Every structure is written in C-alpha cells, then in structure tokens.
C-alpha cells in the first residue's frame, strides 16, 4: 500500500529538480525555459505543497514516520552518519507552511520579477528552488547533523538571493554580512553538533526501531543517572570522564552551542544585525527567507530538539531572556524606521524573539503556534510591501507614500489583515499566538522563576511598541494624502501579486483560530486543535516528540511548574497594550500630512536610528580589530617568520662571501695558513691526547 510517507522524500526533491532545470536549461537553452524558470518552480513547489498536505493529513490520522534514507558515512568501528526523514506533527505542519509560502512567493515573483523585466531570472528561480529544497530537507531531517547541513545550505541560498542584484554595491555586501554573521552562529552550532555526536554517538532526534538511540533520550538517561536513577549510558559516561565535566554542565554547554546557530539564523540579539541589511534582496525573497522560513529555521530547530532543551533549565532561561530582550529591543528600533521593509525586518526580529521567549519559558505549543501564524502574516506583510514597492517604482521610503489605500485596495486590506495580526489585535492570528506565549511565560515565571518573569516583562512591553510601529507603518503607507508623485499615480499590480496576498490575508486573519486558548478556557470547549495536534499518544514510538513528554521533562528536569493564573487577564493586558500602541500611532500618524515625531525622543532617537550601534561595534570587530590584527599578523609573518628564513639564507651567503676571502690569491699566505692549520691541529690533538 503506497502511502503519503512513500512520497515524503519527493517533497524536498521536487524543488531541487526545479533548481536543476532552472540552472541547466537556463544556462544552455534559456529560451526553452518558460517565464525564466518560474513555471518549473511553481509546478515543483505546488507539487511539494500537495504532497505536504497529503502528509499532513496522514499525520492527522495518527501515523508518524521515521526512515533512514541514505547512509552518508558507514562508520567502521565508530558511529555512522546518515540522512533520514522524520515526519511528526511539528515537521508535517512546517512542511505545509514552507511549501505553501514557497508556492505563493513563486507566484508573486511572476509579478515582482518577471513583470518588472528583471534579468537573470533563471538564476533567481534556481536560487528559490534550491532554497525551498534545503528548507524542506531541513524540516524533515531526522538528525541534528542533517539538519545542520541543510541549515548551511539554506544560508548559502540566502547569500545567493540577497546578492541577486550583484551589479549594485549594496546587495553583495548585505549578502556577505548575512552569511558571515550567521556563520558566526553556525560556528557554535557546528561545535554543538560535533559535540553531540561525540558525546552521544548519535544525533537522532528520536529513536524509532531497534538498536537506535536518540540524543535527547540518552541525555535524559544520563541526567537521571546523575540524579541517582538508572544507569548512565556507557558511552556518555566515558565521554564525560574524558572531558572531566558533569553531565548537567556539559549538556548545558552543548545546548548553548547549538543555540549559537539558532541565534544567528533566527536573528536574535546579538547576531540580529544581518537581517535588516538582508532587505537588499528582492522583496519576495525577503518574504520567503527572511520572514517565513529560513529565519524560522532557528526557532524550528529548538522546537525540533526540545526534548533536549527541556532538560536544561539554564539554557531555557537563557533562551527566554534572549528572546524577550530581542523582542523588545528590535521592536524599539522598528519605531523609528522610515523604510517599509526596514520596519518589517525589525518586526521580524522582534517576533522571533517572542518565539524564543515562548520556547524558553516552556511554551512549546505557544511558540510553535506563533511560528505558524507569523509565517503567514509576515509573508503577507512582505508581499504586501512588495506590492507597494512595485507600485512605488521601487521607492521604499514611507515618507514618500501615503494615501495608497484608495489606489490599491486589495493590497491595503490584506496588508491590514497582516498588520492586525502582527500587532496582536483580536481576533487576528497574531493575537492568539502571541498572547499564548506571554501567558505561558507568565505562569511559569510566576512559578518562582524571576528570570522568566523578567523575560515576560520585556515581551509584554514589546507588545506596545509592536502595536505602535505596525500602525505607524500602515498609516504612513496607506493613509493620509499622497506625499509624492509616484504615490499619487502608483504602478498597478496584476493578479499574480494579488492572489498570494489574498490567500495569505485570509490565513493571517483566521489561522489563529486553531488554538484559541482563552476561548477554550472560557467556554470549556476542546478547540485547542494545535495543542491536540502536538500531543503524541504515549504508546506511539514517537511519544518522545510529543508535547506531553516535553511537559513532563520540563517539570522533572527543568523544575518548571505553572502558577495558577487564568488566561483572560493577561490576555486582556497584552491586548490593551497593543491597542494602546496602535492608538498612539493613530493619533500621531493617521492624519492627512503626518510629520516625524521622532524629535520628541531626544537623545534616544539617535541611538535608535543607529540601531543601538550594534552594526558599528560588529563592523568595528571585523574591520577595527580583526583586520588590523590580520595585517599585523601579515607584517609579523613577512617580517619575522619569513625574515628569519631569508635571514638564514642571507647570513649563509654572507658567511660564504666572508669565508672565501681566506683564499686571497697569495700563495705565501696559503702556505702560512696551511702551516697554521697544521699547527693548530697539532696543538689541539697534542693537548687532547697528552703528547706533551
């Protein structure tokens, strides 16, 4: 019986085929390539979407799937490395999200790229295809190493697509920065992967079948053994013995190392600086990569190996703090940005901060939920922004816009839907998910964990800023009077732009309904579908990946316990803050001719404009510290190290030129030197041998 899982490998492979087609046909026979590669891409991603949905439905039926596809390295007397597929609720959900957004972005690209007459389209669609392939493969990875490998490929695609307009100076620079900064995070990630493989001998997320293990489970056993229950897995015990650390410390280090990659990819503080620059890429790319998927990879990874993180309270606290701080920090910067995509970029960083906050505070479901809702509404917002940018002839400055509401209603209303979701206004999707994160943070924080509480506080404060900058953006763009000629007579957009917007607009408005925790609480209805979705029956082989298990681990190992606080009051507070922010924006900017109010911020404004000087110090680290250090090393190398080499040669040759001076051509001197030499030998050996 052929089932969905037999076709799961095809989900990533279809876009890969599209990549190959776009690249090869695009190079050798570009004329044969319909729409510069868009059609193969759309077909492939649509196929992936269909298969993903099929997979999704199968998973809904309660059957999950883990399978080794290809043994990359057959270890002889050591562990092997393999590629495998893991389909569980989390990955099934993510597959659908990624392939859906990918299809929509492909369609949108028809409008944004093809219709705008861009050159190099095969390259563009090849990049999209490769990206979709990498991301989907990352999502279905059944072990950390495979995840890392596709994580890296995702980074490559990001580099290629950000730098798509390579003839201009900006995009290549931004691409380089994006790759470099995330590479810095990946450095830690790779150490983590290597460390996990070395420690546990496996990098599997889940052990299905005989004779296989998963590292979260081994870690659990080891920690339990350290606490006096059961026996430490032999391999782990030996490794800990070699490095001389206890299990808790070492696992925490491993967790933090992997987190390095997450922080880089998900643009968390302090490695968030690449993301705003990455807006140099074409807008559909921003939508696909820098909002919905690649940046999600980091957060997804934490969720993927939550069984490991749930064991480590220290790491969880750090995740929560980083998340909460990033949410607030980025939101505050979003307040003063003038360019549409910049605002969205900072909002992206901020939103992923929320997800991290959720994961750190034990809100696994909430974070996953927000991951999903955010994917839709942020993709929507970026595509909407793309639509605006088409209309504005690629001018992104919001101060040149205004009044676009009438000119482009579809864009406006869909964009509004996304904005409401982003700001967290009930009942749009963002409200439900964000609210749930804050709720989880609160209850676990109140369960005597002041750190989590602090993270919660930051997250809560960020809600206000979010509401403010979101609506500042909406009002400046769409409301008021047009402030430039292009805004008065914008370029029209076609169906291929509107269709994705509409689809995403509907989703952004409604997808939050799948997990209306406050409503469920109020009504007592079992409508927390996502929650139920993520729970895996204990009898299943995959139970370790289920929410129940995570919850159990959190309580047992991380010492998390929830305070008894109802969801309504906190929900109301955050809604009020969001509305407050939105309201302030209404007051300040929903006027015919809005003016900048940033002056009122005083000195803070400079700091915010300069993004807290984060770029500056990182650039300083690269160009002010590393580069001079490299130059100094070069000078040292040329001067001292090579100088010694050349010095040895010069000294030898100099010595040679001196030595030969003995031979001065006078034969009487030769006779004298000969005699002298003989006498010296005579005296020396006479003394040595005692002749005298």
């Amino acid at each position: 019986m052929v089932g969905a899982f037999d076709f799961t490998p095809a989900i990533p492979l279809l876009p890969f085929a599209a990549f190959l087609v776009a690249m090869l046909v695009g190079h050798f026979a570009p004329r044969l390539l319909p729409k510069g590669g868009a059609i193969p891409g759309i077909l492939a991603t649509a196929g992936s979407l269909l298969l993903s949905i099929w997979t999704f439905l199968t998973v809904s039926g309660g059957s999950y799937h883990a399978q080794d596809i290809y043994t990359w390295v057959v270890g002889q007397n050591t562990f092997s490395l393999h590629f495998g597929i893991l389909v569980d609720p989390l990955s099934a959900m993510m597959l659908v999200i990624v392939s859906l957004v990918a299809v929509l972005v492909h369609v949108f690209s028809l409008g944004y790229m093809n219709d705008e007459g861009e050159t190099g389209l095969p390259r563009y669609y090849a990049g999209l295809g490769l990206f979709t392939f990498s991301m989907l493969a990352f999502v279905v990875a059944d072990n950390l190493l495979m995840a890392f490998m596709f994580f890296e490929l995702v980074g490559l695609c990001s580099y290629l697509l950000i730098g798509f307009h390579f003839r201009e100076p900006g995009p290549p620079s931004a691409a380089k920065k994006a790759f470099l900064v995330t590479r810095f995070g990946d450095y830690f990630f790779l150490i983590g992967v290597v460390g996990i493989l070395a420690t546990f001998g496996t990098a599997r997320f889940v052990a299905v079948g005989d004779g296989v293990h998963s590292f979260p489970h081994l870690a659990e056993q080891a920690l339990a053994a350290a606490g006096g229950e059961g026996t430490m897995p032999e391999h782990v015990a030996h490794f800990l013995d070699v490095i001389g650390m206890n299990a808790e410390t070492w696992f925490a280090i491993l967790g933090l190392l992997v987190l390095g990659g997450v922080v880089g990819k998900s643009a968390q503080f302090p490695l968030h600086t690449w993301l705003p620059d990455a807006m140099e890429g074409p807008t559909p790319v921003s939508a696909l990569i820098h909002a919905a998927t690649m940046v999600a990879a980091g957060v997804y990874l934490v969720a993927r190996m939550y069984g490991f993180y749930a064991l480590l309270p220290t790491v969880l606290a750090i995740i929560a703090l980083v998340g909460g701080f990033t949410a607030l920090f980025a939101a505050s910067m979003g307040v003063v940005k003038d360019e549409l995509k910049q605002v969205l970029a900072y909002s992206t960083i901020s939103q992923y901060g929320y997800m991290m906050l959720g994961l750190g505070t034990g809100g696994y479901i909430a974070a996953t939920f927000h991951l999903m809702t955010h994917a839709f509404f942020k993709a929507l917002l970026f595509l909407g922004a793309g639509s605006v940018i088409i209309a504005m002839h690629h001018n992104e400055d919001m101060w040149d816009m205004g009044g676009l509401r009438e000119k482009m209603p579809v864009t406006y209303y869909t964009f509004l839907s996304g904005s409401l979701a982003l700001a967290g206004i009930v009942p749009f999707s963002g409200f439900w998910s964000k609210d749930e994160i804050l709720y989880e943070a609160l209850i676990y924080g109140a369960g005597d964990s002041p750190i989590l509480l602090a993270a919660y506080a930051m997250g809560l404060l960020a809600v206000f800023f979010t509401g403010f900058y979101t609506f500042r953006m909406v009002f400046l763009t769409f409301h008021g009077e047009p402030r430039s000629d292009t805004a008065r007579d914008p370029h029209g957009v076609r169906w291929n732009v509107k269709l994705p917007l509409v689809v995403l607009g509907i989703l952004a408005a409604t997808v939050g309904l799948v997990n209306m925790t406050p409503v469920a609480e109020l009504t007592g209805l079992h409508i927390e579908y996502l929650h139920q979705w993520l729970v895996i029956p204990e009898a299943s082989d995959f139970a370790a990946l289920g929410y129940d298990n995570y919850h159990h681990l959190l309580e047992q190992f991380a010492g998390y316990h929830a305070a008894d606080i109802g969801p309504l009051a906190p929900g109301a507070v955050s809604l009020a803050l969001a509305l407050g922010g939105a309201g302030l924006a209404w007051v300040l900017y929903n006027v015919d001719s809005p003016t900048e109010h940033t002056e009122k911020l005083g000195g803070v404004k400079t700091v915010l404009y300069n993004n807290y000087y984060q770029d500056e110090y990182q650039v300083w680290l690269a160009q002010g510290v590393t580069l001079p250090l490299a130059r100094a090393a070069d000078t040292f190398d040329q001067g001292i190290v090579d100088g010694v080499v050349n010095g040895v040669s010069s000294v030898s040759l100099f010595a040679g030129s001196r030595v030969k001076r003995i031979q001065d051509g006078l034969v009487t001197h030769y006779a004298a030197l000969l005699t002298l030499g003989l006498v010296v030998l005579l005296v020396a050996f006479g003394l040595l041998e005692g002749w005298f």
Partner: protein
Amino acid sequence: MVELPPLTPQILLGLTAIVLFGIDIIAPDTRKNGLLASVSAIGTVAAAATAVWFLAAGSGDYRFVQFDGALVVDALSLFFAFVVASVATLVVIGSYDYIEGEEHVSEYYSLVLLAATGMSLMAAANSLVTVFVALELASLPSYALVSFLKTDRGSVEAGLKYFLIGALSSAVMVYGISLVYATTGTLLLDDIAAEVAGNQFGGVLGLGILMLAGGFAFKTASVPFHFWAPEAYEGAPAPISAFLSSASKAAGFAVAFRVFTTAFPLDAVAAVAIDWSLLFAVLAVVTMTLGNFAAATQNEVKRMLAYSSIGHAGYVLMGLAALQSGAAEANAFVLGASMTHLLVYGFMNTGAFLFVALVEYWDVGRTFEDYNGLATRAPVACVAMTVFMFSLAGLPVGGGFLSKYLLFAGTVQAGFAWLAAIAAINSALSLYYYSRVVKAIWIEDPSDDLSLAGTPTGLYTAVVAAAVATVVLLVAFDPVAQTAVHAADVLFAL
C-alpha cells in the same frame, strides 16, 4: 690460459703512457691528436674493463700481495683503478677537442696516463714507500698538466700554486712518514699495525700520523691543505680540472682508506697516539663547510665547482670519521658508501667539468651570467649538466642521490648523527649554488648574441656518456654498492 698479473690495470695505464711517448718519438711532427686520443682512450678503457673483469671474477676477494708487500691488489685497489681509469677515459675523450691545436699534445696524453698510473697505484700501495712514490707519480704529471697552457697566465699561476702547496705538503707528508718510521721501525702497513699497539713513542707517532694525514688531505683537497684546489681547478685546462677533482681525489681517499684502516687500527692508535676518527670528523666538518659556503657566492662556474669539490671531500671524509673499532658491518657500510660516492662523483663531477670545458671551447665566458640561456642553444648538453648539478646536490636524477644519502645513512648508523646533520646543512646550501647553474642555463634568457661554434664530438661524447652513467647509476646502483661494501669488507678482513 694466460694468467694476467693482478696489477694489469695499472700496467695497462703505464704501458699506454709509454706507447704514447713512443708514437711521439716515431712521428714527432705530424698532427696526430686523434690517434693519441684514441690510443689513450683504448688504454684507459682497457684498464677500466680489466678492473671490472677482475672484480667480477672475484680477484678482489683476497689480497694479492705483490713485491713483498709493497703493493697489494684487492677489491679496493681494483675499485679505485676502475674509478681512475673511467675518469681518465672521459677526460681523454673530452681533451680531444679541448687541446686541438695546442702544442705538445702527445706529452699531454702521456702525462694524463702517467698520472692515472700513479693514482691507480696509490690505491694499491701497501707500504708507505709506495704510497709516497705513487703519490708523487700522480702529482708531478699533474703539476705539469695544470700549467699545460703555457701562455695562459691563469694556467701558469694555477700550476705554480698547485706545485708549491704540493711540494710543501709532500714534504710534510714525508716528514710524517719518517716519524712513523722512527717509532715503528717499518714502512710496511701491516707491520706498522703490529708495532702500533702499546707504542712507547705515542706522541711522535701521533705527530707522524697527523702529518701523514696532511699529505692525504692535500691530495683530496681537504682543509687545511686545500688552498691549491680552487685556483688549480679554475686555472687548469677544464679536462684536467675534471681529472684532478675526480680521479686524483678518489685516489687520495683510496690510499687514506687503506693506510688508516690497515696501518693504524683505530683502537690501538687512539690508545697511544691519536684518535684519527676525531681528526677526520673535525676535518670533515671544516672541509665541507668551507667548501660549500665558499662555493655559494662564486661568480664563475668553474671556481664554484672547485669549491664544491672541496665540499664533497668533506662528505667523503665522513666515511673515515665514522669508522669505529669493532663494528665491522657498520664500518664496511660507511666506507663502502664513501667509495660509492667517489665513484659516482667521478662521473658526475667529471661530467660537470667537461661541460665547463665545452663552454670554454665555445668561448662563451666563465661566469654564471655568461651561461644564461645556454639551454636554448645546446639542450642536450644542458640536460646533461642539469643531471650533473642535481646529482651533485643529491637530488634523485642521478646516482649522486643514492651515494650521498647512503653516506649520510652510514654516518648516522655509526652514531655520528651530528656529523650527518652538519653535512645535511651543507647539502642544502649546495643545492642553492648548484641550482644557480641550472637557473642560468634553463631559466634565464640568453643574451642576444649568444651563439655556439660547432658541436665538438669528443666533448659531447664525454659529457653525454658521463650523464648516462650518472643516471644509470641511480637505477643500477646495486653492483656498485655491493662491490664497494665488499671491498671494504676485504679491507677489514685482514
């Protein structure tokens, strides 16, 4: 079946010299360069061939004592007879073109053959008397040959210096012999060995040995008796430089090997008189260092080769330095390695000097710059020269690689790793200056007016033959190594 006398190679060389004189007496005024060269070559080839034949037939397995112990024929003497005769062959073939048009051609060939006779006798000398006589027989014709170009100031100056230092050295050596005689009462090597142990005049004996060593140092161009060498090699006709730096040096080492291993057993001598192993270690270090360092900054190729020849003497001296009492296998190894090096050196160094002769024949000039771009005009000869240079430097394009590294290995095996290390430093430096020649002929661009007059058959033949021999010795090294080690075995087995 006629039994050939064991000294046949030496006799052949001597006879050929006499025949050459005879030819000149019979036909004094005719141009007969070709005839003389052919006769010489036949004589030397015959001598070399008999040496090989005797070696192959096992004549060298025992010591054939001749003339009541004054001479001895064993593998060592045959080995070096071959070295000398083969170098002489190359030299006379090369000389055919080089001295074309000079006067006194027949004297030239006779002197070469006489010197070769003396050198091959040195290898067979078994008494200090014959050592001295053979050495002088080799030296006196050499003095004349070096100053053969009577109107060339360089040649004359070279001859003068060579002669004066040679005379001084032989005086020192004779005095040393007289002191050895004074303490032991005999001049036969075997008998000296018997008298050495527990000798009461240790100091005098030691002094005698030291001075005797000086005589050998002169012949092998070792410090401090090397001063003649750079000028003599530079000023002499290039084939004679080749002859002196290869054959004469080999003969000097041959006689040193025999005298020191036979007459002065290391443990006995070291107990009463002098640790000559240490002496040679010191000489080896100083010689190779001076030779190589001085060679590094020369401007003229020929003078560079002269200094490099001193450097190689230093390497071979390691063979004597690394001898130890009571380690027959190790001694045979290291001494055998020295001998193989001398043999290979005979071909590659002779070849190199003959290449210089070729360039002198073309009248291109003497400095490295003058050699620039020669490969564009004479690729075959330049390939040969490259083989010589790299083989001398110890790169595996020729037998020099194997012999040098075997020598190093033997030295290490004897426990003289420090000595080998110093040799290694020198060897690296030598790569620098040898490759300067290669750089000049292959890498540098020729000057615009570089043109070469003719293709001298004799010189080309000799150069190419030497190159082929050098390369073949890389692959077919086995017989040489076996013979050399065997010769050393026979030497120690008395």
